[in-house]
């Protein structure tokens, strides 16, 4: 994710419609939007005044077995319709057959005539033991790219919500648990770009995203967090049938660490990302974010832990 002073407020519905319209109809069913745009659409679609500040529109290609043909078809259509590779950084030049995998760029394309946002193609891991980042080669009309996958992205594939535009969005609940599992502790790695002028730890940004999703869920429907553990358990059992019980205890460790008083600086970073991202239209106080975390632990994480311990 890139964040800088030029990141614009975007309307989730308008962007989703534009993305769906550019994707070949036959492959729309293979697309699940994840991240801020998906959350923004889920929570704000019925209120056009509410927007999100994001630059990237992450498109998950699913299922994995169809990721390569779907990725090729989508990328080739977008190239044909004059979507543009970035002109700066490491993302603007496709590789060829001789380019090693670790030197290939991801497919990142701006819509014609705009640099307000771009789409990025991702896919889901091949198996439940495939927990690290994994890249596969994607050969397109414009050269070679990679499709990358991350361990817990497969959770976002669980029971996605189909939009009227024909593509789906990931559920807030599954995006939240994917981020929680991805950060069982506050790590030292920082984001490559600045977020509203600040260098932020990746774990704080992603755990902040979890808090933003929980806050929006509570604002939309009081007590809705109490419904999360059941869906989380179903998603874990579906995507990690052999290992889900082992995963449950690590769901809450990163968030609990973030909420400890001695880690207030990390929570403040999470707050900064929320206030300049998903919650830009309804900026929370630091206290609200902290309480949201505690409510999430009580309503969702502790009951999930109980489910995980049950026979």
């Amino acid at each position, binding site marked *: 994710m890139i964040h800088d002073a030029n990141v614009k407020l975007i309307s989730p519905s308008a962007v989703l419609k534009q993305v769906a319209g550019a994707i070949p109809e036959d492959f729309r069913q293979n697309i699940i939007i994840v991240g801020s745009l998906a959350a923004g659409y889920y929570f704000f679609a019925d209120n056009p005044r509410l927007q999100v500040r994001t630059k990237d529109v992450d498109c998950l290609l699913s299922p994995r077995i169809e990721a390569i043909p779907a990725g090729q078809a989508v990328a080739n259509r977008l190239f044909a319709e004059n979507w543009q590779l970035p002109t700066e950084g490491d993302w603007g030049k496709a590789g060829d057959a001789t380019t090693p995998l670790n030197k290939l760029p991801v497919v990142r394309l701006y819509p014609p005539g705009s640099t307000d946002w771009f789409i990025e193609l991702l896919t889901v891991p091949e198996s439940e033991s495939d927990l690290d980042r994994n890249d596969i080669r994607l050969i397109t009309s414009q050269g070679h790219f990679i499709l990358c996958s991350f361990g817990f992205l497969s959770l976002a594939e669980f029971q996605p919500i189909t939009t009227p535009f024909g593509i789906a969005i990931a559920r807030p609940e599954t995006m939240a648990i994917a981020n929680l599992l991805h950060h069982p502790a506050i790590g030292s790695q920082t984001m490559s770009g600045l977020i509203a002028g600040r260098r932020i730890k990746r774990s704080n940004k992603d755990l902040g995203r979890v808090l933003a999703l929980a*806050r929006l869920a*509570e*604002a939309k429907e*009081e*007590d809705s967090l109490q419904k999360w553990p059941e869906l989380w358990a179903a998603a874990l059992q579906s995507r990690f049938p052999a290992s889900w019980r082992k995963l449950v205890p690590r769901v809450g460790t990163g968030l*609990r660490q973030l909420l*400890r*008083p*001695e880690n207030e600086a990390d929570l403040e970073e999470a707050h900064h990302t929320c206030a300049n991202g998903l919650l830009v239209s309804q900026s*929370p*106080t630091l*206290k*609200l974010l*902290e*309480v*949201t975390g*505690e*409510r999430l632990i*009580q309503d969702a994480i502790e009951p999930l832990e109980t489910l995980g311990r049950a026979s």
Partner: protein
Amino acid sequence: MKTIQFERPIDGFPGFRAGAVLDGTVYEVLVESRDARRLRSALMEMARVVSSKEVNRVVLVLEEPIVTISRLHEEWEGAASVIRPELFVRLSMVVRQSGKWSGIPASPNADEIPMLEEIIRHEIDTRPASLNRSAEAHYDILRILIHQWLLGKGPATVGLLMEISGTSHPTVSRSLERIDHYLKRHSDRSVELRTFPLDEWTRLLAVSDDVRGTVRFADRSGQARSPESLLRRLRQLQRQDIAVGGVLGAKHYQPSFDLVGNPRLDISVHSGRKTANLSFVERLDPGLEKTVRRDESPTLVIHTIRRAESLFQPGEDGLPWADPVECLLDLHELRLESQSLEFLNSFPATKGRPL
């Protein structure tokens, strides 16, 4: 699994009983400590105890201290200057304030917290209530009599009043003497109210907070949970010692009660003579914190019922209802004066003679 030993004697310290002991660590608990001198003397006592061969560490556990954290640090540094360093390094202090843990020199680990909570719970459950019992007893008996009268239950014997209030014969007699002009005394020595005891009621309203141990909780997050949400969560706790009062309770007794909306949740906790353990509040909403400011709108208000019998009425969903007298007090406290009168006048006892 290791077991916490409560109130355990320590060798070499005759008469001293450690609050709790686990694995060579002694835990001493201070609840709602507002006195710096008490804190200082506790630190000195800890230094004495840690010199025992059977003690590795001593931890002072402060539950909802009234003194500030910075004052605690000052006291800690003061103690460091007078306690031998080899003993002082084996001392620590952990603090739970508004449900949040901190500590000096370090916060407790997540693993330790359930054990610390158990130690606090034990301390709260076993300490006697500190309020003036004789002052409360009169208002307990008054409320029991009003309860009998409102619900048309007829005369009550002194024995019944003793049983419900949990007080002695002389206490009940003194109280009845005080409100004699409101009483109808029967030949079998039972008593009942002739009418609503307005001036005694007015006196009760003036001291209601103290008599009922009222504690208010306000939202600190800026996005308060609704009273309905708190109520749903309270039901999930399946507690029979907690009852719903306030506007909801009044509506239960009088479904036609004229009040739209529910500004807050009033509940009564039956604690008997012990201090009420309010740790369940965090389960209702971690965003709630105690407030003593009267200009702040609380989301949750808790009243303590200290008499022997709660007079709670069973609820259909497993959560009892506070008795109508508590509901009436809650309405007064909410400044719903006309609704209080309407509620009072809706009971059979007041039929034909509205107050």
